[in-house]
């Protein structure tokens, strides 16, 4: 099979495929099915400076061509992750991208500052979909000005490359991408889930409000990847509804340098290894020497 190796922020990854944050637990959970070293990089579950309990149930709901989750960012906290789980990835020589969040700017800064550079940490991925509890719960990722500020401040407390993960629920995602770039982001992940709700007609209740993911998100994500990759010079990681190899290839063609797979793993726990193999086969069949040959080749 062809060479899938890619360079990301001066670190080598076996391939350009990662799990999406929050969809592969703390990493170990998948080990009875496939080895974590299969991944180009493992993206952590969203971590915060202090642990969070998360939301009551229901936390997951199936929708037509998608699912809604309201996990509420349950996590053991960044300190425990590094004590208990990080050695597992180092031992298996698997690069890690540390997804993190906060409900105030101080919490983002506190979390980022706690993470020490390490040969196996490729980047920090900051989740900008979080509500800012000091600003009436409006998410950090909504306004270009706010994005510029928080990215800049986080850059001030870490030497690790910083990837900003954007919410699609914005007026103009290109503007947000530009603001993140100007704030100093070294890369972007596009996109996070889309806010959504369910109405149960029988009970007249709203059983869940949360983030929509899965196949339904793909065209929205592709457009974001395409337009932002034209507008900013930093690498883009594509995510949103990638269910199979063809979906994955379409993200590279739209301009993504790497991809993340989330909901697909719930449908088929082998989706990630299958897609990695599929990408290799595609490159071979089309005489490509590497993924770079197809990144951004799609034209209007």
């Amino acid at each position, binding site marked *: 099979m062809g060479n899938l190796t890619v360079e990301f922020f001066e670190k080598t990854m076996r391939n350009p495929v990662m799990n999406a944050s929050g969809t592969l*637990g703390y990493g170990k959970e998948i080990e009875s*099915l496939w080895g974590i070293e299969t991944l180009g990089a493992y993206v952590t*579950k969203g971590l915060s400076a202090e642990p969070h309990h998360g939301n009551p149930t229901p936390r997951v*709901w199936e929708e037509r*061509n998608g699912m809604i989750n309201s996990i509420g960012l349950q996590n053991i906290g960044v300190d425990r992750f590094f004590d208990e789980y990080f050695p597992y990835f180092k031992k298996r020589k698997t690069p890690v991208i540390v997804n993190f969040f906060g409900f105030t700017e101080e919490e983002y800064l506190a979390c980022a500052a706690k993470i020490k550079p390490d040969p196996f940490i490729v980047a920090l991925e900051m989740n900008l979909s979080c509500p800012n509890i000091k600003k009436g719960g409006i998410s950090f990722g909504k306004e270009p000005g706010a994005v510029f500020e928080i990215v800049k401040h986080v850059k001030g407390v870490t030497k690790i490359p910083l990837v900003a993960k954007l919410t699609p629920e914005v007026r103009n995602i290109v503007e947000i991408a530009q603001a993140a770039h100007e704030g100093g982001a070294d890369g972007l992940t596009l996109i996070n889930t889309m806010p959504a709700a369910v109405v149960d007609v029988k009970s007249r209740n709203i059983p869940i409000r949360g983030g929509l993911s899965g196949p339904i998100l793909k065209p929205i994500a592709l457009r974001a990847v395409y337009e932002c990759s034209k507008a900013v010079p930093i690498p883009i990681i594509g995510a949103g509804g990638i269910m199979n190899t063809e979906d994955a290839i379409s993200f590279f063609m739209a301009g993504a340098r790497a991809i993340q797979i989330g909901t697909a793993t719930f449908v088929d*726990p082998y989706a990630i290894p299958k897609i990695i193999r599929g990408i290799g086969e595609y490159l071979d069949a089309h005489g490509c020497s590497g993924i770079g040959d197809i990144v951004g080749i799609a034209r209007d």
Partner: protein
Amino acid sequence: MDDIEATIIQNKHIVSNYYTLKLRLSKSMGRVLPGQFVMLKIPGNEVFLRRPFSIYAYSNNTLTLMYRVVGKGTEILSKCPKNERTLVLGPLGNAFHIRKTDKYIVVAGGIGIAGVHTLIKRLGKKASIFYGCTNKEELSLINDMLHLNPMVSTLDGSCGFEGNVIALLGGYIESTKGEDRQIFVCGPAGMVRNLQKLIEKDRTPCQALVEERMACGLGLCFGCVIKTIDEKEPYKRACKEGPVFDLWEILL
């Protein structure tokens, strides 16, 4: 544990909206423990997340599930013909822990019988079974355990005790006071809550198999949690740390 190709060899209607599904697996699931479950792919493209079902029986690469039609997925499943192919991820989750004791009491309501079926097979005559359902007809769900003399209750009183199974259990709990007992329970949340109230004073050892909505079944998504008394980390995954929990550690 693996994701295993399966072929439907029988999909049989039992009574009201209850069915049993027999699947021939393309390879062994390995060791299956009482209380464990599988994530079943619903054939076709209408629903895409897997559905969790208790392992009702398993031997020689043949897996049996018992299910109740409650929504879209189970509705589609009930119409699946013989020879239809699908996927079964499992066995998943922890298991009932059978410690040595004088009395084993197994309590189930409705489809909850599916969750304790392998446990009952394991305990055999050592188990005192309490089963509650809607009416006489639904008692055909426990046809294969009549020789174990189950105590039954029906909501309409058409057979056995009239009312809910916890009320029926009350007398027995009273009459076995002081004995070393172990209770196992699987059923609707309301039933489990009533049981909790019934044995609150003695805090009789009890393990409960709980149901939560699941997306992955593997501990990946943290979607299926149940609240526990652990103050540091209250939400535990029903698919990973469960589905069997100590009744005195969960908050229903």
